[in-house]
């Protein structure tokens, strides 16, 4: 927006707007960075929480100048060129008011750079953060060191975990209507409604569902992964603070969706070791009855599937044949 029509008395509006904008942006950004930024939820309990907080704050640092830029511009226009203001000049139409190549090029250039930077930065954070705590599907492309070995070993009966050896802890999250339960394959595959995690450890959450879609949201851990039936959705994070956290279901899953939450805790590695071995032996009687540890659990076609599909009554479809050994004996 050039100022071709600027007369002697006309102030240089764009410069004024620019100055107000820069001052407001600097103050806003500084205030945000030092006062708000460090407290942005969900805190810094894990590696993904810490890096996602940084990501949020960087976005906010860029968003504030954008917001201020547009607000200042609009506000300035409202004050300066409101029709009721005494002596406001008649506007000038014509070609100059219809488009301004410089302004358009600048606008497109700046917003493109901003957008491309954000996409690039987000991608780097995503990859560097091993998926940033989000669900990465059954075969994660970005994962912490040792995760592949731990995941592969988890399916064997020899899987184990000992503190201090930097082993990735594999936790299976089983969502069902309407509760999460957790299996620990490295501790004999016991299952528990309690989620306890060791400090300073990379955790591989393997999230699956026994029925409809749920979403495992460990809020303070900054982990969120949808639980789909017959799908394994893996999310990683590394704990770095002791404390309690909340787990909620964040995908509408039916009647008791709102009641589908529990609290977990991050404890010291030795306390975790202690809890896990104790629970493993306490639950041993039930663990042997559980379905063998697997990434997903196919329902019994007749009983647990609810009898919606008339399996087995229509030839040639036979659930026994199609499900084969995966079908639990009933």
């Amino acid at each position, binding site marked *: 927006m050039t100022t071709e029509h600027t007369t002697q008395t006309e102030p240089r509006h764009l410069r004024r707007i620019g100055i107000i904008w820069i001052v407001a942006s600097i103050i806003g950004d500084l205030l945000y960075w030092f006062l708000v930024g460090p407290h942005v939820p969900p805190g810094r309990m894990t590696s993904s929480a810490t890096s996602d907080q940084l990501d949020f704050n960087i976005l906010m640092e860029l968003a504030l100048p954008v917001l201020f830029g547009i607000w200042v511009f609009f506000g300035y226009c409202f004050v300066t060129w409101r029709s009721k203001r005494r002596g406001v000049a008649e506007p000038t139409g014509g070609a100059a008011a219809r488009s301004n190549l410089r302004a358009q090029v600048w606008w497109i250039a700046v917003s493109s750079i901003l957008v491309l930077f954000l996409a690039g930065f987000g991608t780097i954070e995503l990859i560097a953060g091993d998926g940033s705590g989000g669900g990465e599907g059954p075969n994660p492309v970005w994962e912490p060191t040792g995760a592949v070995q731990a995941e592969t070993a988890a399916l064997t009966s020899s899987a184990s975990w000992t503190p201090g050896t930097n082993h990735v802890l594999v936790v299976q999250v*089983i969502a*069902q*209507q*309407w*509760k999460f*339960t957790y299996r620990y394959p490295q501790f004999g595959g016991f*299952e*528990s*409604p*309690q989620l306890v995690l060791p400090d300073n450890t990379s955790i591989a959450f393997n999230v699956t569902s*026994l*029925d*409809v879609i749920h979403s495992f949201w460990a809020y303070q851990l900054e982990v969120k992964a949808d639980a789909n039936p017959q799908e394994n959705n893996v999310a990683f994070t590394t704990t770095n603070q002791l404390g309690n956290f909340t787990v909620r279901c964040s995908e509408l899953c*039916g*009647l*008791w969706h709102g*009641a*589908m*939450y*529990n609290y977990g805790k991050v404890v010291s590695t030795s306390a975790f070791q202690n809890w896990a071995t104790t629970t493993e032996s306490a*639950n041993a*009687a*039930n663990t042997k*009855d*559980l*379905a063998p540890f697997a990434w997903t*659990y196919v*329902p*019994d076609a007749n*009983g*647990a*599937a*609810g*009898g*919606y*599909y008339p399996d087995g009554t229509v030839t040639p479809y036979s659930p026994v044949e199609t499900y084969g050994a995966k079908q*639990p*004996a*009933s």
Partner: protein
Amino acid sequence: MSMGGRLVTVIAAFVVAVALVVAGVAVFLKPGVPGGVVNFTKAQPVGSPVNLTVQTVGAIGFGAHPTWVSYLVKDPEGKWIHDTTWELPAHTMIHMTVYQYDSGSPLRNQEWGQVQGTIGDTATLNGKSYTVYNSYTGNGVGHTFAVPSLNLSVPLIGIDGNATNPCNAAPCHTNYAHNVIKFSFMTPGAGNYSWQCFVPCGLGYLYGNGGPMSTQNYMGGFLQVVAQ
């Protein structure tokens, strides 16, 4: 029509609309607790244990969904009531008795075959104590009584699916085939605690969790725990 006439018309139409909305809310959305609340805190000395007796039935036999499975509760006067919100005193021992009239099936997740959160993590089936039940054997599990937020879960073992005298309409009497499951638990502090069943018993619904499993007053409700 004069202006006053038009004004009256609009106001009348508005009143009619409001009435329709109120009626719609009352009929379709039904604020409040479905069925109502059975109160176990009245006529109860403070601190003394509460006896809570319920039954499960395979097909309730009356109401809007006669084929649905449901819980019934015995109110303090000893009458069976179709109602799943129970008002209980806080920090009090609850002695719960379940008359199980329904047959069983394998659990979707054998985790719920474990008795959890009761006093001593144990329950009794027809007088015999148990802590774990393998649902792939025997009669399977009919239902579980579970309060997820209290980590309370008790598998209610099913009756023989081929029993000659199954109960098909509530309330059932003890001359029908049944199991008696007893356990005790402590109520926590005041609050609303939802309870539900983890057996896919909503027959004819995908994963067995639709219909009665997804409708309050059938296979789920609240423990309304109040401070005394």
